[in-house]
Structure formats: C-alpha cells, structure tokens
C-alpha cells in the first residue's frame, strides 16, 4: 500500500512536470501566434510545419547559451532566483486537481498529486512565494533596471495578494472547504450551479488579481520592456532566463486552472462534454483571454496598480465578503 502510493505520486509528479514544461513551451508559441494574428502578422512560420518547431529551436538556443553571471552580482542569490520561480510554479500544481477521477488498467487514478484539505491556501501561498524569484533576481543583479523590476515585484505582491485572498474568501465561505475538490464538487449539476453566478464580483476580482500574479499585460510591471528593458530579468540569459519564463507560463496555467475550478465549474461534465475535456476547454479559453488582453490593453503604472488594488479592489472584496456573510446568515 505504502509503496504503491509512493510510486503513484512519483509517476504523477513526473507527468505533471513533463506535461506542463511542454505546455509552457507550447504556450509561448501560441502566444506569439495569437499576438501576431491580432496584429495582422503571421508569427513563427519557418521552423517546422506552421512554425511549430520554433519551440524546439528556442529551447535548444536557451540550453546552449552560455550561463553568464555578470560582475558585481550577488552570485548565490542571482543563481538561485530563477529556480525559485520555476520550482514554486510547479510545487503550486501539486494541490490542483486537473481532471476528474478516471480508471486506467482497472486502477482508479486521482489526477491530483496530494489532496490536502487547504488546497486553495497552499496554491495561493506557494504562488506568492514564487514572486521571490523576480524580487531576489532583481535585487541581486547589480543593475538599475533589474532593481526597479525587483522593487515593482514587491509592490505588486503587496497589492494583489490582499485582493486575491479576500476575493476568494466569499466563495470559500459558501463552499465551506479549502479543498479544491470540494469546491469543484460544490458546483456539480450544470452551468447554473457555477460559483461565478453567485459570486460575479469575486470572480472579477480574482481574475484581476490573477493577471497581477502572473505578470500579464495590464499589470506587466516587472519586465515592462518599454520602461525597464526587461525588468528583473535584464541580466539573465540562457537557461536561467528560460526558467523564469517556464515558471511564468506554468503560473499562468495554475491560475487558469484555479479560476476554472473555483468559479467555472471545474471538471464537472458540461452538457454533453465530459468533465476532463470541459476543464481543458475552460483553461484554454482563459489562456486565450490572457493573450487577448495582452494584445489589446496598455500597461498601467505601478502607482495605478497600487491605487487600484488598495483603494478599489480591496474595499470591493471586503464588501463582497460582508454581503455574502449577511446573505448566508439570513
């Protein structure tokens, strides 16, 4: 019994790592394609069919590049920082149920690495730890742009973390559990049971906080090319930069899965669509929205981000919690 669980967990970990590393690479391709289409361009076309092998080419380039560590940097921290981003992005996935249970070779597989009873809390907190990567990387780089990027990381972390926590509080009060599987099961029975209908404000707030957490465009302050060269990643190159990148895209998937699980019915079957496919479609749609907004919206300033999060979103989130509480009481 013990060994079987260990083996099962190891297999799951390897599968999640492999699948999401590949997906992170593939998402860069998708992102480039969609951004290109929205700007009437073609995107990568020359490497492989439809430019699909561009990912492989980029990967080879990243792996083969020299690992440059500039003078004056704080070596240890500089080298560790990308690891933090990449590893926490994958650690956060360990509490995310990706699919409904299914049977394989007469063995029931639960596609979650560990169903801990504080799933949401775990995912959110590990995701927040992930921002130590940009922060430490930016501060150790001995580069003014990187330092600014690191400072903005701290700003962003302080701003959105409050909103994401408070906005999730209201749906969690309704469900009464922190386990993502319980939250998912709460929404069983069709579209009308999705939490988005009872908590639309919480959904909006959480999506906005998710944009901030994954550094997607309207809140893309950490590596704002137009202002900060590449922000915290200015001095990074090769695979260390690549790890930042993979971590960022893995985070994107984690947040998309969280939004789908908490607000959009998760892996409950949708009309005729089986649950496993339903959640994949939802996540795909959410990621498309992330890319879509990147093509459409301008960045905001750091002070606007703080203003938005502290003065608008946080009061709204608290209001939402209060109203939910009163509705539940009476």
């Amino acid at each position, binding site marked *: 019994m013990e060994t079987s669980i260990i083996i099962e967990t190891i297999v799951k970990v390897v599968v999640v790592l492999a699948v999401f590393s590949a997906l992170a690479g593939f998402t860069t391709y998708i992102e480039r394609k969609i951004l290109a289409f929205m700007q009437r361009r073609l995107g990568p076309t020359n490497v492989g069919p439809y430019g699909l092998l561009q990912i492989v080419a980029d990967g080879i380039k990243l792996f083969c590049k020299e690992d440059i560590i500039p003078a004056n940097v704080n070596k240890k921290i500089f080298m560790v920082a990308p690891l933090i981003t990449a590893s926490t992005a994958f650690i956060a996935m360990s509490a995310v149920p990706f699919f409904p249970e299914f049977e394989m070779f007469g063995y029931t597989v639960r596609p979650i690495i560990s169903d801990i009873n504080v799933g949401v809390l775990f995912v959110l907190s590990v995701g927040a730890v992930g921002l130590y990567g940009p922060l430490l990387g930016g501060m150790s780089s001995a580069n003014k742009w990187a330092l600014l990027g690191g400072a903005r990381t701290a700003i962003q972390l302080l701003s959105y973390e409050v909103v994401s926590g408070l906005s999730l509080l209201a749906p969690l009060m309704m469900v009464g559990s922190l386990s993502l599987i319980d939250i998912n099961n709460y929404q069983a029975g069709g579209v009308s049971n999705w939490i988005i209908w009872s908590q639309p404000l919480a959904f909006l707030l959480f999506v906005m906080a998710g944009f901030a957490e994954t550094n997607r465009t309207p809140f893309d302050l950490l590596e704002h090319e137009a202002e900060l060269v590449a922000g915290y990643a200015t001095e990074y190159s090769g695979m260390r930069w690549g790890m930042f990148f993979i971590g960022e895209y893995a985070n994107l998937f984690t947040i998309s899965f969280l939004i789908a699980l908490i607000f959009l019915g998760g892996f409950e079957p949708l009309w005729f669509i089986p649950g496993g496919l339903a959640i994949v479609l939802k996540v795909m749609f959410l990621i498309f929205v992330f890319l879509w907004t990147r093509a459409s*919206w301008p960045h905001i300033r750091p002070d606007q981000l703080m203003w938005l999060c502290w003065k608008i979103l946080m009061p709204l989130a608290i209001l939402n919690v209060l109203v939910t509480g009163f509705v539940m009481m009476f």
Partner: protein
Amino acid sequence: MELKKFKNRNISEDYIVVQEDNYPKTNWDMFKQVLSRSIKGELFVGMRITFGIMYRALFKDEMATVQYPKEKLPIGPRYRAVHKLLRLLESGEERCIGCGLCEKICISNCIRMETRIDENSRKEVMQYTINMGRCIFCGYCAEVCPELAIVHGGRYENSSEQRAHFSLKEDILSSANGLGTQLEFDGYGSVSPDADKKIKKTPLSY
C-alpha cells in the same frame, strides 16, 4: 515693443489650448472618473477590435505579412530597377543604334558603349556596360533613348558580396548579342584592375 510681446508665441487671438487641465477637483469627481474609466467598457471595445482584426486576418485574407522570398509584392510598371536592352520584335535585331545619348546624359557616368560602323555601314554597338555600383537609377538613359532600346526592368534584387558584381555584364542586360569581354568605365566605383583575382564564389555555393 516690450519683451512680453516678443515672448507671446500665440499666432492669433483665437488660439485654442488643446491640453486642458480638466483634472477632477472634488472627491465626487474623482469617483466619477474612476467609475467611467472602469465601467465604461472601453477595455472591451479594445478587445473587440483586436479580435476583429484577428478574425479578418485569418479568414478574410487581410494578413499584412508578405513572405518576401516566397512571395513578392507587384511593383509598378514605371519602377526603375536594373536596365534591359531590348531587341526589335520583328527581326530580333538590337534596337540600340549606338547614338550615345544615354552615355552622354548619364549623370553618374556609369554607361559606357563602344560602337563601330559595320559592313552595311550601319552603326553597331560592340559593348555596352552599365556600372551598377554607380548607377543611381535616375532613368535619364531610358528617357533619352530615341529607339526605346534601353529601358528599366523590374529586377530589383541585385545585392551582392562584391562591388565587381555590380558592374553590369551582358547577362544582366537582355541583350543576347554575344558581346565579348566588357570594357568598364574607368572612374569612381568601377572595378579595380585586379578584380578578376578578387572574384570568388558566393558563400552559398562553396
């Protein structure tokens, strides 16, 4: 006149200040600004526009990209690219009568022709070269030619590794007259005397 009048840059009295400082004054105004900025839906208008562009680019053939070496944009018929020497359509004889007007009018002195009187006591063009390194493609030669013999073609891809490749040979001109070794104009931008030794294959064919 006092200094103040000199400093007044306004052209006329009805000078309109475009940038007005219409910042919100009261808290209520600020709140209204926040509401209008966040609820007005301008963000979603932006998203609709990008989606529409994507849809039209993918399905309505409005993609702006031209995959250059594979597809080329059509150029105008009056485009002035590498020259052509034309022949008479009926007889296949060269149109050029060797009058030398092009040589004379060429403002960058890049045209060089050698003529002689042949057996039929007609003027015959023995050599005709255009130094492409010097040609500025002004089109005077084509304009001045009384016989429409020299014209501009549409071939604009004439980049090369060496300057010697730019001096036009017979193969660039559409003359199939079997003109012998070319005589190059001996001035600025022309091939050096030891150009033959310096000529090497293009890197692709090594």
